[in-house]
C-alpha cells in the first residue's frame, strides 16, 4: 500500500513550508477605465489641490479650535483631558468638542519644529465639522526639511482635500532651496481620488523626477514616470503603456514652499 500511495496523486499534503507552491496562473489584466488624456485631466485637478502638509493641517486645526470658548475646550491650542471630558463639552454657542489633541511648535532658529497629534471632532450648530485623527510633524534645520503626515483629516470649511476628508500617509523630505521629495499617498475618504508618490522629487533644476500614481475607480493604479520633466509616459498597472501625460509640477512645488517657513507656523 505504501508503494501504491507513492504513485497516487496526493489528496492532501501537510502544508508546504517553502514559497513557490502557488497553484494558479496570474489573473487576466483588468481594463483601464481612463485614457491618458482623462488621467491627465484628473491629475490636473488633484495636483491643484493644496496638499495637506503640516502647515495646511495646522491652519485648519486653528480654524477649528477658534470655534471654542473659555469653557470649552478652554484652551486655544489643544484639547486636553483636563479641559475636555471623556464625553465631550459644549461651548456657549453650542459647538461640541470631543477628543484630544496636542500641538507643539518650537522656533528658535536652530531646529524648528511643529507637530500635531490629534484624535478629536468638533461639530458646530451651523454644520461646520472637523474630524482629525492622526499625526503630522515637520522639522526645519537651516535648509533641511523633514515632514510627515499620517492619519485622517476632515474639515468642512476647507476647499481641497480636507473638505471631503482625506487619508494621508506621506513624507516630505529635502531642501527648501533645493529638491523636495514626496513619498507616500493621499486619498479622499469617500471618493475615487487617490494619489501616491514614489520618490517624487520637485525642484527648480529638475521639475519632477520619480513616480506619480493615481488610482483607477476599479482599484488598480496608473503610474506616471517623470524624469526631470513635467511630462512622462503613463502606464497601467500591468505595465502596458497608455500615452504621454503632463502635469503642473511647478505649481505643486510653489504651493509647498510657504508652509516650510517656520515663520508661518502657529495660530
Amino acid at each position: 500500500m505504501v508503494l501504491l500511495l507513492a504513485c497516487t496523486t496526493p489528496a492532501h499534503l501537510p502544508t508546504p513550508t517553502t514559497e513557490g507552491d502557488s497553484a494558479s496562473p496570474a489573473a487576466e489584466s483588468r481594463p483601464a477605465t481612463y485614457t491618458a488624456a482623462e488621467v491627465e485631466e484628473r491629475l490636473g485637478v488633484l495636483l491643484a489641490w493644496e496638499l495637506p502638509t503640516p502647515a495646511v493641517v495646522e491652519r485648519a486645526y486653528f480654524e477649528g479650535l477658534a470655534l471654542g470658548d473659555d469653557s470649552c475646550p478652554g484652551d486655544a491650542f489643544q484639547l486636553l483631558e483636563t479641559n475636555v471630558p471623556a464625553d465631550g463639552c459644549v461651548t456657549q454657542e453650542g459647538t461640541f468638542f470631543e477628543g484630544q489633541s496636542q500641538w507643539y511648535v518650537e522656533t528658535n532658529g536652530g531646529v524648528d519644529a511643529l507637530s500635531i497629534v490629534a484624535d478629536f471632532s468638533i461639530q458646530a450648530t451651523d454644520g461646520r465639522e472637523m474630524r482629525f485623527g492622526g499625526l503630522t510633524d515637520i522639522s526645519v534645520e537651516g535648509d533641511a526639511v523633514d515632514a510627515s503626515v499620517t492619519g485622517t483629516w476632515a474639515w468642512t470649511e476647507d476647499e481641497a482635500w480636507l473638505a471631503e476628508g482625506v487619508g494621508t500617509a506621506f513624507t516630505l523630505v529635502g531642501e527648501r532651496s533645493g529638491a523636495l521629495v514626496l513619498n507616500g499617498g493621499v486619498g479622499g475618504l469617500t471618493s475615487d481620488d487617490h494619489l501616491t508618490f514614489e520618490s517624487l522629487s520637485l525642484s527648480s533644476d529638475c521639475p519632477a523626477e520619480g513616480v506619480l500614481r493615481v488610482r483607477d475607480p476599479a482599484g488598480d493604479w496608473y503610474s506616471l514616470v517623470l524624469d526631470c520633466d513635467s511630462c512622462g509616459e503613463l502606464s497601467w498597472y500591468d505595465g502596458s503603456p497608455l500615452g504621454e501625460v503632463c502635469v503642473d509640477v511647478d505649481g505643486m512645488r510653489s504651493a509647498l514652499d510657504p508652509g516650510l517657513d517656520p515663520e508661518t507656523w502657529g495660530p
Partner: protein
Amino acid sequence: MEGFVLDPATGACELAAVEIEPETPSIYVPLDPPRLLRRMSLDLRGTLPTVEELDAVEADPQSLDAQALLDHQDFEDRLVILLGERWHTLVDDVTIQAGSLRLGFDQEYAYERSVGEEPLRLMARIAVEDRPWTEILTADWTMGNDLLASIWPMELVEGDEDWRVAHYTDARPAVGVLATNGLWWRYGTNESNANRGRAATLARLLACVDFHARPVSFEGITGDLDATSATDPACTNCHSGLDPIASALFGFWWFQRYNVDEISHYHAERELLGEQTLGTPPGWFGTPVQSLSGLAVEVAEDPRFSRCTAETFAEVLWRREATLHDLETVTTLDERFQEGGLQLDALLVATTETEAYRAGGLTDAASDDDLDREATRRLLVASQLASVIEDLTGFEWTWEGYSMLHNDSDGFRILAADVDGTYVYQPGTEPTLTWTLVSERVAEAGAHHAVTTELVEGGSRRLFGEITLDDRPGDSAFDAELSRLWWRLYAERPEDADIAALSALWEAVDQDEDAAAAWIAVVTALLRDPAFLTY
C-alpha cells in the same frame, strides 16, 4: 487487481498486480432516521424538527432531505453562527466603544453584534443564494443594517429586512469578506506586526495553512529582526509566505487605531505601503499580485481554497477536527463541492451523508484512536440552546438588550460551551458544571414561559398541542400530549415507563401547587434531560 506500483530502483510507476486488502468493517453505528433528522435540523436550522417532519421521516426514511433544511428560512441565521465558530468575529469587545459613536447603552449589544456579524452575513447570503463560494472573495457588496450604515461609510440597498445588501462608499476593492470592517476590526495589527497576523488569519481560514503550527527557532538570531526575517532560514520558513500576503493588506492600515474615521474607512492611498514597510511586494504563496483584488482572485483559484472549505465545514458538522483518518472523505467532499459549482449547499448535503456525521455511536471494531477522535454525541451549546428554546417556547433570555446566550460580557456563552472568538475557539464537547447549570436555568425559564403564555394566558401554541390545564394524568389527551412532547423533543418514542414517570411528577407537583406548576415541572424535566441537551 492491477494498480500502479513505484519501482524504487528506477523511480518509475509501473502497472502491476496488487493485493486487495479486505474491507475494514465500519466503526460507525448510524443514527436512526428521526434522530438523524433531529441532528441535521439542530445543525442546519438551530431548531428541532416538527412533529410532522419526524412522522414523515419515521414513515419513510428516504424522505430525509438535507436540502430542504438548507432551503428553510432559519438556515441563514444558523449559518452565521456556524461561520462565527470558525471566523471568530462574534466577539464582545469591539475596537471602538459604543459610547465613542454616540450609541446608547441600550444599543451596545446590537452594535457589537452587528460589527461581528457583517462578514458572516455576507458569506451566509452568498450561500443561501446558491452563489459559488468563491464570491466570498470577489463580491462588490457586503451586508449591513441601519446601525452599521449610521456609523460606517456604507449605503444600504432598499428593503424591509434588518440585514440587507450594502455597499461601502469609500472606494474599497471588490474583495468580498476581505473588504469588511467587521473582519479587520476583529483582526487588528500594529507597527511591529505589520499585517502579518492578518495574513496568517487569511491563510488559515481560506487555505487551511497554519503558519502558527510551523516550527520556529530563535536560537542564534540577533540584530535587526526585520532584516533577519527576510534572510534567516528559520524565519523565512514563515515570512516568505506571510509577508507578501501582509503586503497586500495595507489599504486597511491605521495610524490611529482608536479613531473612528481612521478605522472605518478604506485607505487606498496606503495600498502601496506594503512593499515599502515589509520589503516585499504583495503575493500569494509565490504568485505576485498587484493589489488586494489580485490576491483575492489568486486565493479563489487556489485548489486549497475549495479543499479548505470542505475540510472546515466537515469539522463544523462533525464537531471535531479532521485528521489523516478523514483524508479520503474530505477529498470526496471537495470533489462533490466542486461538482456542485462550489455552492455551499452541495458541500453541506455531502457532509451530512458522511458516516462520521450520521454516527450515533461506534462499534466494537472502533479502536482507541477512533474512540478519542469521533464525536458521536454533541452538546447543545449556548447559541443552539437560545434558538431551540426560543423556537419551542418563545422565550428569549435577555438583559438590558443583551442576549444572555450570545455574549460573555453579561451572559453565559462560553459557560455554556460555545465559542466567543477571543478566548474560546471551539465549541465544548464534554458536559461541564457551568454548561449544566446554564442549561438547567434555560430549561426552567423556557418551561415557565411556555406554560404561562400558552396554557395559563391562552396564547398561540408553540410547544403544546391541544392540552389544557383541565386535563389530568390518565386522560387520553394528557398521555398523548406527553408522548407528543417526548417525540418532539427527543425524536424517540417514549416507553410506558417514561409516560408513567412524567405523570407521577405532574401529580406530585399538582398536589402541592397547581396544574400550571405541574406542567412547568414536567417540561423543565424534559428540557433538562440529556436526551434533549445532546444530539
